[in-house]
């Protein structure tokens, strides 16, 4: 939990000796609070103060890294209960589980499918974040072979899943340089699993039967020096997991309870009777405190909605997603289709694009860069004016895309019509409806 400058100041020597390079202890405390100075710069701080400040300055939830290389995953590191309080920082990871009992050809296909999956949304590209390998065969050699096959076919981070330390050891010996996470520490195997995690320097998942046991195991691991942990409280149902994951997040963030200060790992496929149920459970973990989400089915019809939901939940509420400036076709737009103008706030864009789509009239939607502001806000901030619109028309080369010279302006900025006619003398400026939902009606009346 972050301390304020005043809280830090209280435990400093208050001598204003300037040895840290700052004029006063209060100034030094402020720098410490902002993370811009190191406590070690103060030669006179007491050991007691050092311990209390170091404990308090650790983040409430550890950031855990899985994998090596460009696609490595970072999960956890959250500091909020609700996204509106600030933001959620590290998007929940969508991982696909493959079982070592499947035939090699099936495994290879599944790995290739997951690795090559890619989908675009609001100008960003997303894919699967990792592959979990489940040791269902009960055979350590088979588990290791499959881990090797999968590692050779993908650059995605791996999670090795087994409760058998011997099998885990065999698999780790083969693929440890990929820095896979291991999952399956429990009260029976915790000591051997800790040894493996330490030996290979990999993150470890712990399953506890309820919070009491989980806290004990997590404390034991951290005490042994394994601090890259993922926690599984064992709950699988929707209501139970909502309650226990909420409790864990509260313990970590609001109480500073160290044994719960780690990302979580969840399994929506366990206990789901259908694809829809798995999708709903995974969505629930995206919204409520799942850090790693291990799916048991690779289905784009589920993955794409989940990626979209994650984008919604993990978007910084202070920084709206923006569309790139451009001229976007809606439906099968042709050179004769209507040409509409709007701003680059993604919600504005999607609302209007949705209504244009629903109107059934193919059209063009030109997006001007207004730094993520909606139509009226951008207009009042001077970022959506006649000059900006005219410049976008030229930059995006609108005349090469459409035959006519008619532009439909948002009704809310009808006031720009006169200026635009001056800026674009060969264009006819039409004033569209004030509300996006009236676009369909407006087309029927005004566009023939």
């Amino acid at each position, binding site marked *: 939990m972050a301390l304020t400058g005043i809280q830090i100041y209280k435990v400093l020597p208050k001598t204003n000796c300037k040895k840290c390079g700052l004029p006063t202890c209060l100034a030094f405390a402020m720098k410490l609070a902002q993370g811009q100075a190191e406590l070690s710069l103060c030669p006179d701080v007491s050991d007691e103060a050092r311990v209390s400040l170091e404990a308090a300055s650790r983040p409430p939830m550890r950031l855990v890294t899985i994998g090596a290389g460009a696609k490595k995953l970072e999960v956890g590191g959250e500091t909020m209960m*609700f*996204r*509106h309080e600030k933001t959620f920082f590290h998007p929940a990871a969508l991982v696909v589980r493959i079982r070592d009992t499947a035939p090699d050809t099936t495994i290879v296909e599944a790995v290739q499918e997951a690795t090559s*999956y*890619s*989908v*675009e*949304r609001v100008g960003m590209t997303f894919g699967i974040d990792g592959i979990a390998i489940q040791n269902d065969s009960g055979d350590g050699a088979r588990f290791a072979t499959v881990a090797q096959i999968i590692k050779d076919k993908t650059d995605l981070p791996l999670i090795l899943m087994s409760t058998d330390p011997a099998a885990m050891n065999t698999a780790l010996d083969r693929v440890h340089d990929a820095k896979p996470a291991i999952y399956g520490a429990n009260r029976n195997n915790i000591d051997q699993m800790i040894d493996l995690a330490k030996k290979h320097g990999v993150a470890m998942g712990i399953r506890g039967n309820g*919070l*009491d046991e989980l*806290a*004990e195991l997590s*404390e034991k691991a951290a005490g042994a020096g394994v601090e890259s942990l993922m926690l599984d409280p064992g709950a699988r*149902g*929707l*209501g139970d997991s*909502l*309650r226990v994951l*909420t*409790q864990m997040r*509260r*313990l970590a963030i609001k*109480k500073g*309870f160290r*044994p*719960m200060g780690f990302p979580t790992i969840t399994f929506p496929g366990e206990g789901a009777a259908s*694809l*829809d*149920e798995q*999708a*709903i459970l995974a*969505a*629930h973990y995206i*919204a*409520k405190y799942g850090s790693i989400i291990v799916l048991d089915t690779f*289905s*784009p*019809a*589920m*993955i*794409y*909605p*989940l990626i*979209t*939901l994650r*984008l*919604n*939940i993990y*978007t910084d*509420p202070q920084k709206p997603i923006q569309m790139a400036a451009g001229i976007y076709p809606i439906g099968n737009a042709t050179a004769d289709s209507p040409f509409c103008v709007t701003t680059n706030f993604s*919600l504005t864009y*999607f*609302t209007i694009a*949705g209504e244009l*789509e*629903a109107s059934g009239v193919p059209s063009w939607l030109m997006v001007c860069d207004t730094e993520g502001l909606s139509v009226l806000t951008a207009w009042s901030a001077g970022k959506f004016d006649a000059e900006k619109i005219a410049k976008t028309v030229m930059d995006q080369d609108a005349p090469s895309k459409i035959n006519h010279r008619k532009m439909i302006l948002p009704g809310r900025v009808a006031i720009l019509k006169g200026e635009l006619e001056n800026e674009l003398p060969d264009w006819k400026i039409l004033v569209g409806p004030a509300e996006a*939902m009236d676009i*369909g*009606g407006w087309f*029927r009346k005004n566009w023939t």
Partner: protein
Amino acid sequence: MTVEIPIEKWTGKIQEVTLGGGGRKKLVIGGAATLPGLKFEGSTGNPTRVAIEIHDCEPQYPTLLRSAWGDAVKDPAVWAKKAAQAGAEIICLRLTSAHPENGNTGAAEARVTVQKVLSAVDLPLIVMGPGVAEKDNLVLMAASEAAKGERIALGPCEEKNYRTCAAVCISDGHVAIAKSPLDINLAKQLNLLVADVGVPLSSILMDPDTGALGYGLEYAYSIIERLKLAALMDDSMCQMPIISHPGPETWRQKEARTADGVPSAWGRSEERALIWEELTATALIEAGSDLVVMCHPKAVEAIKNTISKLNA
């Protein structure tokens, strides 16, 4: 080790709003004294209620949704019955034909439709106007008269026309649906205005607006969470139960409507469309929606299942 579970001590709770009575089933909405599902620290009140949307004229549904309802979409009474069989707890009737662009029907037609639906099913009813202020006033007044004594919900009751809707709710004993555009302050202010006119707090539902998955869901999600937190901290003007429209919002979007010409990474259209509606609803329910309006019968089944598991 015994972990001490952190409990939030909330001082406020969500209003309970009753629909129905008279000739139909009674249903109570709201009542939670904590956040969704967190029964270890307080009452979770009534589970989120599920309404199914029907229209008074055939809507522009995409094929997948249209075929789920078949020719029932041609007759609101038949449709209401079919919706009841599909598991609706409430019927949400939209007077779509009253829109000036969509038939421009008036008070007389609205009265007949509402009466037909009321006699077809014994479920509580929501009647929504076409969303054009002057037509809303006209048809909601007619609907209110036709449903006198049945305690239905009427909306949208918006800032520009809340007086008429509020007045008919007071005189005929109905519930007003106060609708504001994705803004917590506007939502609160409208509740205050509607309450000031004399609508009892137990007769207001609030609709802080719904964005579908990928289309502003995050705004709806966070506004609902903020309203719930304010309500639990005892802000009485945020304690109205919340109604959301995941069904209709989803089926307006390309991901639900379009089967061809979309990237293969979107997956099979039948599965994707249903999951789109289900995930929109799931997120809104987890944020705190007290009533969700749904469209596809299969999504209704999945969401009712989800709600019962959330509270199990």
